[in-house]
């Protein structure tokens, strides 16, 4: 599996302070595996990012480097060494 850098919106640190300030690196070949690895580090975080069907929540976005993931339903997009996965909140509301 590839070593992947992960960057999270700071909003998530309010719920998972143990991740704040850390350089997050996980072993994963897909975005779904990135989320699984995060959940091992911070139990419960997968349910913040995805619903119980494993779909990205409607107001959450995930990017591989600068590209938005294509598979929001199963997060099957592949990731490679040197890439960074960003998990961010969409702007909704004012």
């Amino acid at each position, binding site marked *: 599996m590839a070593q992947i850098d992960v960057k999270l919106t700071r*909003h998530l640190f309010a719920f998972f302070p143990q991740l704040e300030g850390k350089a997050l690196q996980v072993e994963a070949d897909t975005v779904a595996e990135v989320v699984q690895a995060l959940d091992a580090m911070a139990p419960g975080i997968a349910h913040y990012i995805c619903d119980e069907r494993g779909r990205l929540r409607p107001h959450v976005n995930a990017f591989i480097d600068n590209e938005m993931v294509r598979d929001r339903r199963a997060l099957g997009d592949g990731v490679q060494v040197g890439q960074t996965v960003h998990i961010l909140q969409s702007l*909704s509301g004012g």
Partner: protein
Amino acid sequence: MADKTLWVATRKGTFRVAKVDGRWQPKLSGHPGVSVNFVARDPNSGRLWALLGHGHWGAKLSISDDDSATWRDNEAQIKFPEGARYLTQDMFEDLDSEHGVGWKLLTKKATVLKLWVIGFGGDGAIHVGTIPGGLFTSRDGGKSFELNLPLWNHESRGGDLFQGDGTGETKWFGTPASEGGEFAPGIHSIVVDPRDPKHLYVAVSTAGVIESLDGGLTWRSRNKGMILDHTPDGEAEWGHDTHFIECCPAAPEHIWQQNHVGVYYSADGAATWRKVSRPEQGVHFGFPVAVDPKDGRRAWLVPGHSDQQRMTIDGGLFVARTDDGGESWQQQRVGLPQQSAYDVVYRHALAAGEGVVAFGSTTGNLYVSEDGGASWQTVGNNLPPIYAVRVG
């Protein structure tokens, strides 16, 4: 008594309200900035449960074992099991239609759209109602929750969709009350008979009142006497827009219901309902109802104008109380604003218990009465929109 506490769920956090130096004072006591749909104490364990709706991050159960000093996500969260599906009506763009839109019946995979209400049984069971209409029960103090399958697979909503396509018909309609406004049916009321924890009622927007006598193994409709005004068959078994139900703890056969089409009262455990609206006295439309803990014939409402005008009547806020099973009503206005007040009080935001009646509005006003509603004290005028008020 100094130990009376109100728990107030708001659009922007959980508030604890208690008397300090003789005055009711609200204090932000958890979940700052987070939408809280409901907060209540489990009388069996003393634990506080808050039902959160994070805008981005989904619905979460939050718990506190130290009276709201600290909160944490409950280890077990409410999740629909793999394969859970439901039938629902959805609007779609239909360019061939004169109106540009049509309605179609869809089968959707279930995901929690909202945690709406929590109820506690004398046997320690914890019940949670959701949108879409799921009843989840924990029998291990909250370590795990299970979807009640007999209700989820009920014939009135199309049968067992885990195994196939069911009947393809549902008599449960929706509510737009989910976090994102998605239209789906929801369970907003859970009544557990204090004498028998296997005797349960739930109420659904939009289906009506449903009863189980065997701890949730079987369910039946309890909508006799209720009259629909939004379907051709006014006496249909299903399709009732119950806004909230509550029973009298000391006399549980007395059950009250604020419905979309009026106020109903049952003195026989929901076997039959009697309409007790008095529109000429301003008692008809609204969302909440609270029942006296000891006297099943006494109840409070916070009426609104009507379905079409969901606001106070003529800009004056009042609570309506009956002491005789809805035969007569009195308007309680002392201490409440009577000019330019347009408050709306949601279904969970009126409570009676421990000698207190309290309610909060979507305009952030919170009021308490210690004399059965004869007079009201203002607790706050600038709170966030209030979703629920519970005593205890």
